């Protein structure tokens, strides 16, 4: 039975990811919010607490000018790739503390084409680091993947298998950006970006928005036939000895990622094990990241990934379906919206109404994971 201070997702909405020059980041956010409200069958006036996140597309709280000037407390979050999870955390904690019984989390972004712009000063780094061409997220993902493949003897083909599955899932998802299936061969032979990663093994900065309506346990079942319980949510920053993006130096290994800490904490909080997960979202800014995150979150052992992928275990019909909507690889990465896209997909899967390929058999345990600069990770366990 639900407890009053359990938190549930009772509505979700999303603006399709991709490229659409006719809309702004905030236009997309408004649409996602309205969809989420309609999905929950509530009005904006019913929302007692809100949090929003965007990396580059404006101050989220200004959305009240378009949604309605109700006086609602609205917290802005800017937390890199963990922005979406941080908005959920802020709202869930407020509801749990009794500030309101209904809350809203929204994330949106619209990025320029091409690699992200970086500022050394913003990361507390000296100018030479960027001027000499070492401050690129793509390099980091390549360097981490290169070392990982070497340490665990994983062939580069496994990277293509990750991307091929992402585009296969994306091709069947109405909200995804990249809807064209690609073969492993096409992925391996696409332009080299930073070896071992090729063009089609990377996601692109994109645009999109997603929103969730959250409710306390004492109200959740009033709004929604099948509310999805936020069983646990954990957010961690890096500790000493992790291998992070934008690191001019590293201590000698072994390196422990904040993803490991966040995943351990979230499963402990939910009272579940990684083996219980029936549908998962993993941060896949690139194929290598997903490969590594599979093991860092405990969904498989280090070095087991190729076998898992080859057996189809991460396909929608497999043992641990991963990124059933195509993830960042097929959706692109609007930073503020990406984490909430993960929630949107897992919630819909657990409710049996996936927009794309539905995981068969009525999955009951879902998992989300984000990882970002400079060493942050957030994981959630969702259950029905």
């Amino acid at each position, binding site marked *: 039975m639900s407890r009053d201070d359990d938190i549930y997702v009772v509505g979700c909405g999303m603006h399709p990811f991709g490229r659409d020059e006719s809309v702004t980041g905030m236009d997309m956010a408004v649409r996602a919010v309205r969809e989420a409200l309609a999905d929950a069958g509530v009005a904006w006036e019913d929302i007692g607490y809100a949090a929003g996140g965007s990396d580059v597309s404006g101050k989220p709280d200004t959305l009240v000018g378009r949604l309605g000037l109700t006086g609602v407390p609205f917290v802005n979050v800017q937390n890199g790739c963990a922005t979406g999870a941080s908005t959920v955390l802020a709202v869930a904690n407020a509801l749990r503390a009794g500030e309101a019984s209904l809350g809203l989390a929204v994330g949106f972004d619209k990025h320029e084409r*091409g*690699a992200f*712009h*970086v*500022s*050394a000063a913003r990361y507390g780094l*000296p*100018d*030479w680091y*960027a*001027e*000499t*061409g*070492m*401050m*690129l997220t793509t*390099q980091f993902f*390549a*360097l*981490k993947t*290169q*070392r990982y493949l*070497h340490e665990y003897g994983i062939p580069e083909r496994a990277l293509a298998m990750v991307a091929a599955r992402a585009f296969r899932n994306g091709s069947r998802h109405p909200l995804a950006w990249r809807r064209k299936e690609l073969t492993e061969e096409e992925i391996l032979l696409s*332009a*080299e*970006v*930073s*070896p*071992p*990663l090729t063009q089609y093994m990377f996601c692109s900065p994109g645009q999109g928005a997603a929103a969730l309506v959250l409710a306390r346990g004492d109200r959740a079942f009033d709004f929604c036939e099948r509310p999805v319980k936020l069983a646990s949510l954990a957010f961690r920053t890096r500790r*000493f000895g992790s291998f992070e993006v934008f*690191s*001019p*130096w*590293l*201590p*000698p290994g072994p390196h422990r990622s904040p993803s490991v800490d966040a995943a351990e904490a979230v499963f402990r909080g939910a009272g579940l094990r990684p083996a219980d997960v029936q549908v998962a979202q993993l941060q896949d800014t690139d194929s290598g990241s997903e490969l590594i995150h599979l093991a860092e979150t405990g969904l498989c052992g280090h070095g087991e990934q190729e076998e898992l992928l080859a057996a189809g275990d991460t396909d929608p019909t497999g043992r641990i379906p991963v990124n059933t909507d195509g993830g960042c690889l097929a959706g692109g990465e609007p930073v503020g919206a990406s984490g909430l896209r993960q929630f949107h997909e897992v919630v819909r899967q657990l409710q049996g109404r996936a927009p794309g390929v539905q995981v068969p058999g009525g999955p009951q345990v879902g998992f989300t994971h984000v990882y970002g600069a400079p060493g942050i990770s957030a994981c959630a366990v969702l259950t029905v």
Partner: protein
Amino acid sequence: MTTRLIDDGLFDGADPPRLVGARCSGCGTVVFPRQDSCPKCSDGTMSAHPLPVRGRVWSWTLQAFPPKPPYRPPADGYRPYHVGYVDLGDVLVEARLEMSRPEVRIGLPVRLTTVPAYQDEDGTDVLTFAFRPDQGEQR
């Protein structure tokens, strides 16, 4: 042609220059570039610590597309370049790797060198640190 080092604080002032990090008196952690507090413990004080000039490639990749600013290309324009982490024992340092694709591999013995990064407006060549294959080691 006049040259200068990209940031004097990275080097020890010797010729040829060596990289200088900092070492914590409390826990022995070595960082690069130097900083005045230890990222691991709060007990020690940090003091300048010259780094070995020889190490091994720990990981590598290629920068196959021209980075956006604030990257500054060399005077003769951007060309793809290798970067990687070099294992110097107490610390892994991220650096440009001056070597060809057939040469580059994890475990390759390398030694410190400098390479032109970009040119100042007055034509001064600005040098940054890099590692190249250590021929001595291979012989």
